[in-house]
């Protein structure tokens, strides 16, 4: 299964997930997207900027001392009353990450578990 199909499958499996994208954190470039409706480029740019901020930028740097500061942030969730944006770093390629835009009442544990499995499958494809 190619990356697009993996993202499509995750979006179908996670209830309340409207968008899944795979991005390069260092360049803030969206590599692949699965969405119910075609997202605007500005929206994707904002999403990848937020992912970089949360996993590698100021948010991550400010949070890291709480776990000793050695390991990088793996998971981040930015929540508003209208949505939950989930970011998960790829285990095999730390500069890449999965980004998900979900309903605000999503089960985060289930969504992260599914995202991890998706990233493992993507990573195993080389």
């Amino acid at each position, binding site marked *: 299964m190619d990356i697009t199909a993996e993202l499509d499958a995750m979006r179908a499996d996670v209830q309340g997930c409207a968008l899944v994208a795979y991005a390069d954190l260092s360049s803030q470039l969206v590599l692949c997207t699965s969405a119910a409706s075609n997202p605007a480029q500005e929206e994707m740019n*904002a999403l990848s*900027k*937020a992912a970089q*901020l*949360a996993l590698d*930028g*100021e*948010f*991550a*740097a*400010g*949070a*890291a*001392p*709480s*776990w*000793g500061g050695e*390991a*990088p*942030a*793996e*998971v*981040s*969730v*930015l*929540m*508003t*009353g*209208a949505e*939950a944006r989930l970011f998960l*770093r790829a*285990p095999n390629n730390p500069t890449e990450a999965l980004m998900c835009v979900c309903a*605000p*009442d*999503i*089960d*985060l*544990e289930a969504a*992260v578990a599914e995202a991890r499995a998706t990233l493992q499958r993507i990573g195993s494809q080389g």
Partner: protein
Amino acid sequence: MSEFARLEEKLAKLRHRERIPGEGRKLRGTGPDALLAAIVTEIDETILPRRLTFEVPGGHIHLAVANRRLQALLGPAPASIPDGLVGLKLPDVEEPAVAKLGAALKTVLAEAEAVGVSAIRLTETFGSDIGVPAEQLPRVWSVKASKTLSASETLEAFLVRLDTKSVAWLRIEGEEVTGQGGPEAIVSGLAEQAALFLDGYFSKFETAFRESSLACGTLISPGDAAQTGLFFIEIDTVSAILSAPTSEILGIATAWQRLVAE
């Protein structure tokens, strides 16, 4: 200087530098009684001295509020408000102007469907014992007190349910730490961590959140199950920072999101 004092000092600097003073929200209600009840709730949630500004048809209502007490109606006021009420100190509920102010507010709110509300630091000085306690206003203004939990009560109810054997938290209101829970060893370091995190949080807030007034939670966690992650939550003007094991933090965040999401 204690760890909390450092955090409070940092919060005061950060909020003044990065946050928009008087960032607004909307109160909604069906009819003037419901809107007036919502205003009473705002007064009840205000502990630090604040100038609460309500955008109403025909102008703005400015209230001096501190310690959950209504201290005065401040100028300028809409033309329909009697001049004698503007700037008049309200020492307690026995002051006849309190009932008159309630009636005048109902008149102003009669045409409103929603009322914008914002708060800034109060520059006028009133005595700490001056003012009508919010809990007495529904009776004198003939409105039913709102039965919904205030933001402060919602946060408190959430925090006290956390497992304090593994989860540490600081409750922050304005620029003050107003509560804490969890293992002492973790709590003592959390203030320093909070100051560091909030420095980046406020400086990059607009990058992370498209609609700032809706932000309610930020979670950052490492992958190692044996480590802890950080969860910062906000509801109106109250907030909390939590340190929780990575195995628990997603469940905590889900519970919070379901509590406060639209």
